[in-house]
């Protein structure tokens, strides 16, 4: 039987990828971010997961608005890297896990979540900005990506994401093969990429969110999309995806690691939870 051995909440941003590619890990501005990932990377090495199930969002790189899915599941054996407009980054495609992914598809539909099933699912910085900070880029651990529309409104509610997490847990627990799975929720934390409050940053809300994700996820799931955008910015609404990770872990969790830094205009959060 498969097990959700833990969860990781992490921000994603193109700038993290740019800094990593340029080798700026030791530059003072970036040290608090990159050093912050070291304990999470060590935890992964100790936990020896077989699979990453990543709830993330695509930034109009795999999908365009001609047909924009609310939920989309990557079931391919390999996921290509998307060109976001700056060219591809220096690493290869990412392995998938079709057997688990199709099981997940069946289980989610049975649970009344109905993702678009994608045999080709190119990945953008929603996955690839933080992944090299957590694992070697020869990508030994397969990734099953589950994309959520948090860009074109109407977007799913926070409560829907939290319930999605419970459905992920059910799917994991009913997978007949032994597999140690780490569930990721990624996005945010606060950032506002345009408009009169461009660059707005709300650390108080970010810290409250990190606290309550651990202890009061149900309460967080009752906040409206407008609440999330007012507090964390119209793009900061991405943080609702962390609730899917939290929902997949069940009631009580142990915090292994937490980090927060905001060198630019995005609150970069990292939270490692163990079941």
């Amino acid at each position, binding site marked *: 039987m498969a097990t959700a051995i833990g969860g990781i909440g992490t921000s994603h941003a193109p700038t993290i990828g740019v800094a990593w590619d340029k080798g700026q890990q030791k530059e003072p501005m970036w040290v608090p971010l990159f050093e912050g990932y070291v304990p999470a990377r060590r935890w992964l090495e100790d936990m020896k997961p077989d699979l990453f199930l990543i709830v993330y969002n695509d930034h*109009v790189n795999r999908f365009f608005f001609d047909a924009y899915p609310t939920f989309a599941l990557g079931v391919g054996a390999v996921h290509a890297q998307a060109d976001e*407009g700056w060219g591809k980054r220096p690493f290869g495609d990412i392995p998938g896990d079709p057997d688990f992914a199709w099981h997940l598809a069946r289980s989610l539909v049975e649970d009344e979540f109905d993702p678009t099933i994608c045999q080709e699912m190119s990945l953008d910085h929603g996955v690839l900005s933080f992944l090299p900070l957590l694992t070697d880029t020869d990508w030994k651990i397969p990734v099953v990506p589950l994309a959520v529309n948090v860009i*074109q409104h109407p977007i799913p509610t926070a409560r829907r994401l939290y319930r999605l997490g419970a459905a992920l847990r059910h799917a994991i627990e009913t997978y007949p093969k032994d597999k140690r799975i780490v569930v990721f929720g990624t996005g945010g934390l606060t950032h506002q*990429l*345009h*408009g009169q*409050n461009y660059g707005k940053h709300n650390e108080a809300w970010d810290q409250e969110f990190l606290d309550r994700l651990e202890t009061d996820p149900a309460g967080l799931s009752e906040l409206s999309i407008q609440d999330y955008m*007012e507090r964390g*910015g*119209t793009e900061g609404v991405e943080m609702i995806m962390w609730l899917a990770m939290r929902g997949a872990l069940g009631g009580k969790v142990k915090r292994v690691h937490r980090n927060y830094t905001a060198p630019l205009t995005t609150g970069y959060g990292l939270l490692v939870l163990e079941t």
Partner: protein
Amino acid sequence: MDQIVSGAYVFTGERSAKGFLLNKMANTLSVPENRARFGADEAGYMRAMGCSAAEIDLVCRRDWRGMMEYGASIYLLLKIGAAAGVALPEIGAHTAGMTLAEFHAKKGH
């Protein structure tokens, strides 16, 4: 839900429908060859993609704020920016009605 939250347009279905052709053109810039064609002749490239004179004018004037008002998605402005050699801070500051220098001064960078 409000149309403007946190001082910014919420990217609703209505905005997505209005900005569709501009966003669609920007989306083609994910392909390196298209970026090269766009770079060689922006207006001609956009015309061939079905953009209107008003849309072409907004892009050629680098009126990022105007593009957002028109119905662009911020993520597609970033693709136009990548093809035109303009990064997020300059785009974001412009949508806030500031120059990049004014934005940095405000943030104390």
